[in-house]
């Protein structure tokens, strides 16, 4: 993944999470993963197109998703219902959009697709031929992994 893309995603993740959850956000070591890997339970995907092609995937356990959605909505959710799903999708949208805005300022043109939310157990995601950058984040609510797979268009 192009070096210039890394920081905007990391910065956007932190500033948005801090802002909406109003809590301490800890970052783990960044690393690269090859094509496929398991997903924790709730995955929000935002596609990218433009100068590049790829996608950003926000991956977390169901409980983490529920408690994040609860804080963002200011009410205690017990189920991962429509409201919860919409909230997590919106969070993914906010983070990606801010990263894309930062990238735009650096001169890279990206377009976003609307976020898609996928839930289930024992899921795996594959992006053939693109390795993914993993930004692990630890919140009081649980673990969140941001998985960015982007490549230059040939």
């Amino acid at each position, binding site marked *: 993944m*192009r070096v*210039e893309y*890394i920081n905007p995603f990391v910065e956007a993740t932190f500033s948005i999470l801090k802002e909406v959850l109003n809590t301490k956000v800890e970052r783990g070591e960044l690393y690269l*993963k*090859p094509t496929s890997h398991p997903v924790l339970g709730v995955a929000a995907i935002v596609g990218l197109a433009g100068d590049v092609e790829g996608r950003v995937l926000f991956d977390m356990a169901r409980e983490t998703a529920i408690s994040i959605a609860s804080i963002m909505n200011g009410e205690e959710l017990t189920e991962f219902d429509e409201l919860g799903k919409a909230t997590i999708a919106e969070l993914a949208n906010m983070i990606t959009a801010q990263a894309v805005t930062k990238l735009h300022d650096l001169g890279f043109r990206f377009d976003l697709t609307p976020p898609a939310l996928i839930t289930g157990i024992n899921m795996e995601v594959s992006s053939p031929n693109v*390795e993914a950058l993993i930004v692990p984040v630890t919140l009081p609510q649980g673990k969140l992994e941001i998985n960015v797979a982007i*490549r230059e268009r*040939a």
Partner: protein
Amino acid sequence: MSAVDTEVQKEGSHRPDEGREKIDFKMITFSLGGREYGIDIMKVKEISKIDRFTYVPNGSPFLRGVYNLRGEIIPIIDFRIMFHLPLKPIEAGKAENVLILNTEDQVMGVIVDSIDKVIGVSSQRVKPAHPLFHDINVQYLKGIIEYGSSLYIVLDVDRILGIAEERQAERPAAAAEAPAVAAGLEAPAFAPSGEEESADTLELGFIRDTLSAFRGFVVSDLNLDWVKARLGEWRDLRSSEGRGVQLAEPNEADDFLEPFYSPYTGELWGEAYAREIEELLPDVSGGTLSAWNPGCGKGYESYSFAALLDRHYHGKRIKVWANDNDLLGISMAPTLAFHEEAIPPLLAPFVVKTRNGFGFKQELKDSILFEYHDILHPNPFPEVDLVLARDILSFFNPVQQQALVQLFRSKLRVGGILFIGSNERLVDSGWREVRKGGVCGFERLADEEPSNKEQVT
């Protein structure tokens, strides 16, 4: 008896045809990158001019998009991108020439430069493809046929379209297996060849283990000559200091490895070294020169290499893919800054003053793409003319080394050069060593006959 009779009769009935040629194979001919190709007409559903595809994100580079063919959605593939052939830019508003192919289970369109005609020949005249036709990998070819005054290369549609899908699945599996087998393969290189050598072998074994434990440096055929020679020097050096040969700490491993690294590791290249590399650069046709620089570290060698290529191939477009899996190092690469007195003449034309000292001009930066990438993971880079991989193979286990050399080979065009470390040596077949002073290069030779090739891979 009667069965034999009928067979004889059958053969007899064919005889009158032998004099004349029987036309039993028709193909559509088209051109790609200036060469003539043919495809079995039975595979072609129709010919079409298409100008608007729907772009699909996240697809392979050669997948140009999808197209609605009278209600059926079909993928459109560009053969020129797939086979790394020169792409003729199409005039605005003009449609691409597309062959709609029908394989067993699906329909798809392929873009070609131009579609010529249909010719009928005898299938017996299709000769096996010669590996010299290296524009397209020999495994995708059915054969070559002469018709009139031209030669047509017959493509094997099923294999091309099948392989386009499989290509992605295979590579990661090979990489994952690698570490498991590694331990088994290391040993044989050091099997003692004689009684008197056993003490040396033992020492070498210790050195090998400590180098790999402290610095991840793997002793293999690639660098065995150097390690043996260095061990001799090291022994003399250490005994003069009254110490043993063995490496007790990581920094002793660094001392041992110090002369291993190629000249100007982590520095901008000096003029003498640059000239040595320059003399090995191959001739390149076409307007673009692409190079791959895995393990670029902080980017010093990428900038030096890009500047050298620009000087040598003046006027061509230079594209260097530089990557490293050291996040901290490569993060600094795009904005590398330095003091002016440290600039060798090679890079002097590209230097500008910036806020924090001196940096490189945008035109040089634009020719390099720095990526955070692990070389053991699959990558989407297209075919390149040069690979600059100094001193990195020695830091992978023998199985990974093999896989990487194969990877370099598959990414390099025939006649392209792979530069490895000054003290490294490729033992694989299919390469020709080219050397100049401290520079160690290997030219990629054409593939062998397909039958042999299968054994190699």
